[in-house]
């Protein structure tokens, strides 16, 4: 009985007016972000940085690094060219497959462009503006066009 009464009372309540929805407002969940580490020959760092930048990546950090020589003998003979660059890029989760596919292809096809890349999930970022910058979120942008922009390299 009580339950029925409660239901009736609830139905008597006037419905709350919901906020008017904006026309064409595409509501989507925030995209997750990842940290992409790309280790390549230092001479090819700019090339790979540009390639990754073509996928709407707004923040990249280039760090000069060195590979670890395979053997001490090679090092003593000066036969190890260990100058490397580590490119740290903040990428969007949904663009990761395309970026990895591109990198895999370039690692094979670019002369002296052999490298390795991996991604680490990011769990938090503080500030809406920072998130929008990192995820290349542009208000009012048609998602289809955003994808086109992402594919350009």
């Amino acid at each position: 009985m009580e339950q029925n009464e409660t239901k009736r009372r609830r139905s008597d309540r006037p419905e709350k007016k919901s906020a008017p929805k904006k026309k064409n407002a595409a509501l989507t969940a925030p995209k997750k972000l990842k940290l992409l580490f790309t280790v390549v020959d230092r001479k090819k760092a700019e090339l790979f940085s540009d390639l990754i930048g073509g996928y709407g990546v707004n923040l990249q950090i280039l760090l000069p690094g060195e590979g670890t020589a395979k053997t001490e003998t090679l090092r003593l003979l000066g036969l190890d060219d260990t100058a490397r660059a580590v490119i740290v890029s903040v990428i969007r989760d949904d663009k990761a497959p395309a970026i990895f596919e591109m990198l895999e292809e370039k690692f094979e096809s670019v002369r002296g462009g052999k490298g390795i890349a991996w991604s680490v999930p990011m769990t938090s970022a503080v500030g809406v503006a920072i998130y929008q910058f990192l995820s290349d979120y542009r208000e009012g942008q048609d998602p289809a066009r955003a994808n086109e922009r992402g594919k350009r390299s």
Partner: protein
Amino acid sequence: MTFSHECIVCIVNTGFSDAVMDAAREFGARGGTVIHGRGTASREAERFFGISIQPGKEVVLILVPHDLTDKLLHALYRAVGLKTPGQGIAFSLPVDQVVGLSTLSLEKSGEAPAGDGDADKS
């Protein structure tokens, strides 16, 4: 969620990256990448704990299969831990995707392709 690979980050005093790699190679890592950095530490904390922090640091990145991570971290702790001259710390990050790993030597040795990580082919 489990990941096939993990990225081990080991921060040691300048000159100890070789010790890091020696320890890592024992457990199957084939290569790593060294980045030079500069450590910052609170002077007050240094005095309190009675240690001195050398500012020059080397950051070694090593990509390894998930199942090697624990062994490797323990090896690094023993070889270049905070109580050694290397004064190193090491931690691992989950890697959810990876491209560019060499599988040639693994095929030769008959291991699975995901059996080893290598951060560079130097």
